[in-house]
């Protein structure tokens, strides 16, 4: 079996938002919509303060609450663990947005205009309008088109750039690592073996596919 997951080594992450920007480029997301972003956490009180940068996005849960509630089957779980959206089926009811405990989903009803209505769409915004995503649910896809391309062409997702999500490719700290958790020899399996890790909101039992490494074992 195959299950693709994302691993974030939060010892490495510096919150630079390169992944955020790379995702915005690759997926041509709307102004304000970030399928991947890095949060800035501050823990404790002065002078005993810690600051941590936490990449977030769709957790591609095993028991995806979004897929359970979706009335149209637009959101579905792929055999490789990726939670996908069939934009053509989605009615934009936004129920999945409410069901996601990771605030990973958005719905955008208007074409991308980064500088606002007054200035219209820039050329690159016109070029990749993604009108299929208008007024329906959207979220991180783990760049599944790359995964599909990679597996069809003998590439290893998470290793070969053409088969790896844009955020992991772009991460300048190598803090985001993508791979197959069901393969005991994969990059992510190795990291999870050698590091202590947690998942966000574990108590909600979503079976999140997003792991945070916080200390070496």
């Amino acid at each position, binding site marked *: 079996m195959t299950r693709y997951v994302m691993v974030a080594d939060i010892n490495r992450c510096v919150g630079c938002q390169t992944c955020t920007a790379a995702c915005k480029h690759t997926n041509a997301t709307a102004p304000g919509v970030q399928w991947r972003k890095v949060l800035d956490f501050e823990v404790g009180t*002065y002078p005993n303060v810690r600051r941590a940068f936490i990449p977030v996005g769709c957790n591609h849960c095993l028991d995806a609450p979004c897929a359970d509630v979706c009335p149209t089957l637009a959101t579905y779980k792929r055999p490789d663990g990726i939670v996908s959206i069939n934009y053509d089926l989605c009615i934009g009811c936004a129920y999945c947005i409410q069901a996601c405990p990771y605030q990973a989903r958005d719905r955008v009803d208007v074409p991308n205009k980064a500088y606002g209505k007054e200035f219209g769409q820039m050329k*690159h915004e016109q070029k990749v309008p993604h009108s299929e995503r208008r007024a329906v649910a959207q979220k991180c896809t783990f760049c599944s088109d790359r995964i599909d391309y990679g597996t069809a062409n003998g590439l290893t997702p998470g290793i070969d750039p053409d088969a790896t999500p844009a955020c992991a490719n772009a991460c300048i700290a*190598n803090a985001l690592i993508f791979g197959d958790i069901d393969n005991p020899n994969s990059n992510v399996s190795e990291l999870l073996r050698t590091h202590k890790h947690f998942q966000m909101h574990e108590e909600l039992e979503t079976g999140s596919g997003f792991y945070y490494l916080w200390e070496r074992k």
Partner: protein
Amino acid sequence: MTQESPTGKTKIPTYCYQCVAGPDLLNVRVEDGIATEIQPNFGAADCTPAGGKVCVKAFGLIQKVYNPHRILTPMKRTNPKKGREEDPKFVPISWDEALDAIAEKVNKIQAEGKIDAAGYPRVAASFGGGGTSTYYMGTFPAFLSTLTPIDMGFGSGQGVKCYHSEHLYGELWHRAFIVAPDTPKCEYIISFGMNIEASGGVCGVRRHADARDRGVKRIQVEPHLSQTGAASSEWVPIKPKTDPAFMYALIHVLLHEQRDRLDKVFLRDRTGSPYLVAPNGYYLRDPETKKPLVYDLKTKQAVPFDTANIEPALEGQFVLSGIELGADDDRWEHQDIKVTTAFEKLIEHMKPFTPLWAARVCDVDNKIIRRIALEYLDHAKVGETIEVDGRTMPLRPVAVTLGKTVNNGWGGYHCCWARTMLAVLVGALEVPGGTIGTTVRINRPASDRNDSVKLSEDGFLAYPMNPTDKENWLATPDVRNANRTLVPLVGNSAWSQALGPTHLAWMQQDKGPDHWPQATKPDLWFVYRTNPAVSFWDTNQITKTIATFPFTVCFAYTRDETNHMADILLPDRTDLEGLQLIRIGGTKFIEQFWDHQGFALRQPVTEPQGDTRDFTWISTELAKRCNMLEQYNKALNRGAAGVALKTDKYDFSLDVTQEHDVETIWDANCKAASAEITGGKEQQGLDYYKEKGYRLTDFPRIKWYLTAKMEDEGVRYELPYQETLKRVGVQLGRRLHEKGISWWDEQLEEYEALPDMMDFQALWEGALERNFGVDISDYPFWLVTSRSMQYAWGGNVSIQMIREVSKNIGTHGGLVMNTGRAHKMGLKDGDRVEITSPLSATRGILVTREGIRPDTLMLMGQFDHWATPFAKDFNVPSMNALVPMLLDLTDSSGSGADLARVKIKKIGEAK
């Protein structure tokens, strides 16, 4: 099954050099001629230190091309009145009209004389971003070279917002315009405010992430918890501007508690530690050779430092004879006088600076200071070695890094000296794992630090000080910031003018000091990729000054606060639209030390927008219209565009009498570049570079460290004792006093052989009280700044995506204040506040955070725009309007620090 890769069919290689931590190679995905996506260049993953990746700033480049706010045609000002409140009434004009207007001005200047009555160049030029603008201005340097002399001293923060003291002292001591840890091997870093995670670029971030993964311990000492503090093992919240005390205490612990564990071999053989210091503070010298003397423990006598087979004493006092050479012609002959080794002087000098003393100054527990000193020493592994490129070298995996503000203004000298001493004491200077330099800009040649190693008569690294002797001192400044007259250390390289004191150029526009020529206005001012009207200090005054300049030509991307005063706006093609070849690799700024070196091409990836023109086309046109074509072509042939087009190995020189198009010029440069790195064997031209993007060859790692060269040439680091500086200071003082100038006296005091500790906080407070007649207790907070990785150097405030993603970093929104302190003052997150310094006031939103000292406030980045489209709606204040330019706060290197005293007042509730 094969199908087209979803990462795109057409990817065009180019580079990003928006910040000094570049360059980084990248690919641009292009769909039907439209650039849609920035991607890493994984083809270069193995030959670039950051794996072919680019940082967030590069991702702003697509919007940069298509930004609707761009200026897309040349413009001229029709409102002759200049000022912030004046509408410039720019109207579009043709390139012919714009270039002719500039050429007319240039020709007039050429005819009337290039120097004005005050002795200053009539043409001035300001470029931003630590020299990065050069990587976007095509052949403009070749055009400028035909106009010299040019005043490059109107800075936009250079000298006060760069690593200024590090630049000067770093180059003096170890050819290190930029100092960095050898991060790939380092195990313990004490970082005083060095925000490497925000300013180290892709290379820095990647290397430090790898180091953390390896278990490096980095201690971040700074008043607020920056991104770097966040990513460090420990944060030590220190009072602003007290870093010298902390560092002195570290040295104290090493010298007075752990002296036996220091690297005595390194101190003895590679530094001036054993040199004997005579009563007047200069070295005791051999009367015949004039060489400094050391005491040989083998023969029990004083011998010249370079005598073979000796064992110089590191410590101790001796009764000896010899001569002492002071400033100018001062000379003392001594018979049987007491002399002390420089190292012994150091021990004595550092005695008072105990951790307990420093604890009170820095507001940091003395136990922490002592622990850090001991951890540093433990990690230094004195005695261990490592093999690099077949040579056995010391391994000293410890380093101390300095951030801006720490590095600037008063205290900068102390910090740089103490930092370098911390390396020297454990033998960690310029060795694997230790503190190394990554580039030279004042010494020559700039292309390779190793080649700049030259032996001085006294056995140290020779340094190109500006002369201070009677005959050669430049008594009348040749540029408005008087760099060569006032700052011997700044040297006389192409970079020296920009190193400042750049604020002096602005300050004197208002009123010059006594016995000094009143600064004139440049008749023609070129501005590119810089915006001093928001990015320097006392921005209100600078804006007024800029408005008085008679003819300003701005290469303009969008309207901004500086080009609001321009007479001509020229829209050049942006990063992804222009053509240029640059040198990459080797050892460059920040942590860009590579295992490769070579060249990379920047090329148009999409149709240029509007009627913008390639910078090289503009330069050639200007040269032609100014009747300088031949000189311009000659400059190109000499290598003004980056590569000499003719050497004894190859010849791709251009016909100097002809006008050449952009592609022809860069094709010649590409061929010459290929020939240069292959010893003339290959000559790939523009087509090759367009397809591949870059051409590299190996750069031996041993060149990262000066050690091999220093050992081979028998050169010493001039540390700990600063005899040269002391002499230079005295001479400079005499020269200035001979002219009746006493306003630089405080700066002269800084030329000390062993820097004396001062109360730097009191120095700031006193200067503000004196100059503004305020009671400093009315301004209870220290205001500091911090770098934004998303914006720094990028000139990208008008890029929506950058704004959007930067908001994810909590400290971008406004004035950062300690949460507890805010609550005590009845303030809460989101409140609108007015921030007032003795100079002026600004307004912004309060951002409460735990990670900042209660006595400190922080304003990130440089905003406060009022003309730049998009950015003018941010409503985010900047400290720049609040910081005065004061001579009192200018140190001997011509630098000041980003530091202010402020008070705050609530003016509105949080929404």
